[in-house]
């Protein structure tokens, strides 16, 4: 079984986010990017499948963008066998990205794994859109993947810890919520070593941007709805806890 893991860089939410002059998009000049946390889990689960002998090859694939080379080398340091960077125009937004991936991915892969969602996929989740374009099945919010006879068995999470198990014929797309274990860490030294010994394949294409679109009219931090009364000291907090009968 060959697995493609689709990775995406997203703004780091630990940083302050600002709107640009258009009033419709993030000002990306000073913000830091990091790998979408759900994609990290997708990669981890894929590498676990390989380690369990259920997958033969894991390829990390990303669209060109901020610090993408670093993300792809890190993915290889964590256990991906290959890395592929897609360059070209017309891949902005989750809908176009899905169309871009559907052009770029041939039928070589049995399983396409990606994060269930990302903090900026305003136009829909990429995984299920890609599956509809490729006309293959998709299961989202997956927390466990195991090999099966003609495909994979997955656990999908609903709410309150309730889950369902499904048998899924491959090829298929899986939107990963969480891997079976905490995503591994790749030490900087190992990433550097990979950078020197391995290389990232590149593929260039022109995406299709003619799918149905909505038009963004504004972006702004949420209007504060009264909000919290800020406390100045722990003494105040302790008083409050006493008042509420907690302490």
């Amino acid at each position, binding site marked *: 079984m060959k697995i493609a893991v689709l990775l995406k860089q997203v703004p780091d939410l630990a940083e302050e986010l600002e709107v640009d002059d258009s009033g419709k998009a993030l000002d990306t000049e000073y913000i830091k990017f990091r790998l979408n946390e759900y994609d990290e889990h997708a990669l981890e689960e894929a590498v676990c499948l390989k380690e369990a002998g259920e997958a033969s090859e894991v390829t990390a694939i990303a669209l060109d963008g901020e610090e993408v080379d670093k993300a792809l080398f890190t993915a290889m340091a964590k256990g991906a066998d290959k890395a592929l960077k897609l360059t070209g125009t017309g891949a902005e937004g989750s*809908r176009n990205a899905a169309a871009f991936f559907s052009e770029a991915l041939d039928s070589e892969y049995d399983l396409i794994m990606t994060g269930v969602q990302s903090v900026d996929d305003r*136009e829909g989740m990429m995984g299920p859109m890609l599956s509809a374009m490729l006309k293959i099945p998709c299961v989202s919010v997956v927390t466990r993947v195991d090999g099966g006879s003609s495909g994979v068995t997955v656990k999908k999470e609903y709410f309150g810890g309730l889950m369902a*198990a499904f048998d899924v014929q491959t090829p*298929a797309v899986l939107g990963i919520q969480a891997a079976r274990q905490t995503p591994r860490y790749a030490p900087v030294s190992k990433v550097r070593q990979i950078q020197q010994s391995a290389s990232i394949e590149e593929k260039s294409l022109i995406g299709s941007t003619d799918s*149905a679109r*909505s038009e963004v009219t504004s*972006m702004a931090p949420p209007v504060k709805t009264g909000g919290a009364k800020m406390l100045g000291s722990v003494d105040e907090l302790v008083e409050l*806890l006493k008042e509420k009968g907690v302490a």
Partner: protein
Amino acid sequence: MGNILVVTEHMKGEFQDISLEMLGRARQLANGGSCSAIVFGGMKDRASELGAADRVLCVEGNDDFNPEAYASAALEVIQAESPDLVLVGSTSMGMDIAPVLGVSMDLPVISYCSGIENSGDGYEFTSQLYGGKMDVKSSASKAVAMVLAGSFSADEGKSGGSANVEDVSVGASSSRVQFKELIEPEAADVDITQSDILVAVGRGIGSKDDIEVAQELAETLNADLACSRPVVDAGWLPKSCQVGKSGLKVNPKVYIALGISGAPEHLEGMKDVSTIIAVNTDKNAPIFDVAHYGMTDDLFDICEEIGDSL
């Protein structure tokens, strides 16, 4: 105004609240247009609970959710009905359906909607992006919108007249996805939905060892320990402690959020608590919008000082 169609969700024979919330909003927005709901399998017998619908379109089939079969059935009904607006939950089940509808119908998909208004000849949507740190408004004349749970009143969805209940037949979907079984959560030592006081920790806690600091505070306050999703994914606390969308909805008297930023997925599980106290070093964290009291000091200092003064 326009024709609006709601894709309902159910589990174990009950409609999920999100279905009623979407239906209530659809009723208000339809304003002269029609408001229909798709229900699946045996939920036909509960169609009368969907008071706000003009029509309840019943798809025969299995009661157990199946990503492929449900998306394909919904698609067929929507192709036949061609509504202006389709509402689907921004939920585990909705994520398997809405993006597929959007691509297959060539309609825009709008994620994380917390607001929908009529606007000109279409709709204006408010999406909560970047973990709730930005509200993005967008407009479209036709769309598939994914609605965040808790954005609208469920009561509105129940009220109204009696809907026309109609059977719709759909073709057999391919069977590349097979439902096997439901898996119940493991029994927990503590049921946090019953707790009076919760001390909840989030990503800001930093490491597993630091959980002890929160645990000590919880013990001092006679509270139970809860957390947001990243803490469970990191393996620091069990799933039974998780508050939010894929976790539990809680309603203690007091909820103390330590190092929780307040992403929409977490707020879904706790925003109605009557007293929320949030500690987060990021003064812009969305948690402060739902919290009643807040502090931006370091949470470890605070935990320690509370411990010292009690």
